[in-house]
């Protein structure tokens, strides 16, 4: 381990402030499942701690939600340390079956879901009359393409009115690999090549995982917008009517806390109905429990995290709205007492 990596681990003074917010620690209760514990385990690995199940369970149960980093008084970056240590272990061939599967599926099939079907099937008939070149390109993402084709179609139907196109052969953005320690460069290059081909200066996505990856992990400075950012700037052109609804909003960690996109989704929601905030929101928002490979690797834990987040829904709202298909998936799994909607579904109601 180089000095820089070691210093980033030792930046943690073990004060334990992260114990008060880590959603995984809240469920598990063992020190190794808190951010402080993971920093210690990372240190242990550098000192020769044997990499066994206990080590994997510590390092791999972090959802990379970043709430610990948000409040860390000493300025440590546990998410970076954890992603880095996952990467170091994978380089040594040390990974769990879930990590292996994610990597194999993503690299071989272009998506971590193991889907071999036509990724762009959601486009339906519209795929034939799309412009090859455009200033804006929509990056749908794996989960949206395969699991939420209707939402994805609705999203694109709104976007295409503004001249947005799609990639010819989109593949996974690489986020699941990056979060779980594998090398996504093959996927990144393939997507980047196609983005260049469209001539687009801006990539738009509706997925928080794709958003942070496109924005922070793709080489060069790609201009990336979340669908909510793109649409919030075009509210006047959207002809939305007011709905007699009260909703609450779940901030996806990789959209909100990691990239500061808090206002655009709220602007859209407030344009169509009444918004009541969840108990924790914006920078302090609790994780849905799916990120960082946790849904794939630790589905039961992920479910508990989802349930805890759902407890923060305020009393009398009609819907829980979010802006990421992965959050949507896990919040639905948790058995919410109100329906969970993608923000596009809400907007569509206001367009009818």
């Amino acid at each position, binding site marked *: 381990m180089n*000095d820089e990596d*070691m*210093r980033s681990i*030792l*930046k943690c*003074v*073990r*004060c*334990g*402030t992260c*114990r*008060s917010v880590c959603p995984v620690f809240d469920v598990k*209760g*063992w*020190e*190794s499942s808190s951010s*402080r*514990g993971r920093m*210690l*385990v990372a240190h*242990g690995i550098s000192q020769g*701690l*044997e990499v*066994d*199940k*206990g*080590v994997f*369970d*510590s390092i791999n149960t972090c959802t990379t939600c970043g709430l610990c980093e948000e409040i*860390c*008084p*000493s*300025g*440590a970056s546990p998410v970076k340390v954890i992603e880095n240590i996952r990467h170091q272990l994978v380089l040594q061939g040390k990974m769990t079956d879930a990590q292996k599967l994610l990597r194999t599926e993503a690299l071989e099939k272009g998506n971590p879901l193991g889907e071999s079907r036509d990724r762009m099937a959601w486009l339906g008939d519209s795929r034939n009359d799309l412009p090859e070149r455009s200033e804006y390109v929509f990056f749908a993402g794996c989960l949206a393409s395969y699991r939420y084709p209707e939402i994805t179609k609705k999203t694109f139907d709104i976007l295409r009115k503004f001249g947005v196109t799609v990639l010819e052969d989109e593949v996974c953005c690489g986020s699941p690999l990056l979060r779980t320690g594998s090398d996504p460069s093959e996927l990144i290059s393939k997507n980047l090549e196609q983005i260049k081909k469209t001539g687009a200066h801006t990539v738009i996505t509706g997925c928080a995982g794709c958003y942070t990856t496109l924005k922070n992990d793709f080489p060069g400075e790609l201009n990336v917008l979340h669908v909510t950012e793109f649409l919030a700037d075009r509210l006047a052109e959207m002809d939305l009517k007011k709905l007699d609804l009260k909703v609450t909003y779940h901030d996806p960690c990789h959209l909100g806390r990691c990239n500061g996109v808090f206002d655009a989704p709220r602007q859209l929601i407030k344009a169509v109905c009444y918004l009541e905030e969840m108990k924790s929101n914006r920078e302090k928002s609790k994780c849905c429990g799916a990120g960082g490979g946790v849904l794939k690797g630790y589905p039961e834990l992920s479910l508990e995290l989802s349930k805890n987040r759902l407890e923060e829904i305020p009393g009398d709202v009609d819907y829980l709205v979010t802006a990421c298909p992965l959050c949507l998936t896990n919040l639905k799994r948790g058995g919410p007492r109100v329906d969970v909607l993608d923000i596009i579904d809400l907007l569509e109601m206001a367009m009818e």
Partner: protein
Amino acid sequence: MQKSDLLNNLQKIVGEEYVSASSAELYCYSCDASQIRGMPDFVVRPASTEQVSKIVSLANDNEIPVTARGAGTGLAGGAVPVEGGIVLDMSSMNRILETDLDNLQVTIEPGIVQEKLNQALEPSGLFFPPDPGSSAMCTLGGLIANNGSGMRSVKYGTTRNYVLGLEVVLADGTVINTGSKASKSVAGYSLTDLFVGSEGTLGIITKATLRLRALPKERSVLLASFDDPELAGQAVVKVLSSGIVPSACEILDRNIIEAINTYDPHIGLPEAGAILMFEVDGTENTVREGIEMIKDACSTLATSIRAASDKKERDEIWAARRLVGAAVSRLDPLRTRVYVGEDIGVPIKELPGMLHKVREISDEFKLPIMTYGHIGDGNLHTGMCIDVLSDEEWEKLNKAADKIHRTAIGIGGTVTAEHGVGSARADYLGLELGKALDVMVLIKNALDPKGILNPGKMGV
């Protein structure tokens, strides 16, 4: 007893999923926020007094060390199993057992987090006053075992003042109850006081009845800036002798001011050699009067005085102060805060002199030392940040800490005002306590003849 048999027995007591011998888990429980290290053999998370009693009894029969741990936020190694054995992670025993509002009392299990207790009490208008910087994560058990305090101790005192009674598991597994629900009792030796601050060396606290106070109706915060810390020290002496008892009186030196402003830029503390943060609480009238008296007392020494404009600003300043201990690490990416020699206490009159000594020590070792702390009760936190990869800096740090400790003792002070002795400061107890340490050893031997309870701590 073989390790595997011990594991089986522990699993029988608490259930398989609450015992761990995984190397990752053991590594995580091998330290707290201090520099002390010790690898446990097992970590156990008990759920009841009965389980604790059985575990301790098993350990006693087999002469295995047992170290109780709350949230592991300690700064002296108190929860570190320096001789191995079993770590009892008490944080799962976190229920509020009885809230007796009419008697201003609450009975709790030791694993409850300070802030969560106060959040639960807030609707009833009551609170548990001891308020350490770690209140968001530290447990009541840890606070009691270390007699912790914090920013409001200048007015409200330390945890000891709020413990009416305890349930304690002794070294042989016997469960005793100390104290009384009556607010005064002189029946027998004050065993409650003996266990408060005993750092898990005499017994394991499994229940506590606490005295509560009514939440004050008003609070106000005043910031006074000074050219240097010594002048601030003089102002504190003046304020306290003027008859006002602030609910907090904190000092921040130049570097700490910068650390707070770095952590949360929009707080914008004024640049100064030192700032005193006063808080006054009570009724509207007493707060107004208190603030005026503090302003008067500081007027000839301070360069500027300002009050927090509203509740939001007050809360932000306080939240930032709470985390400053670790936030000093933000000043330089290459340096990390190391908690060594960080908790001296001196008589109030000696404060300006001690602050001057700290500065001399800083110059002597060419090591920046940041000073903050509860100056209102003579408790100074000296913060040192070093490049943790440099052996030379570690050596300087330890030498400076040693000098700070000896200087404090030399002027009638203490090596630890609130963080505890643990292993980190155990070597100074002889110097500070003299023959009184021998009495501590006698008590320890009487209550824990096999020496299984948190061995290697407190000089006993």
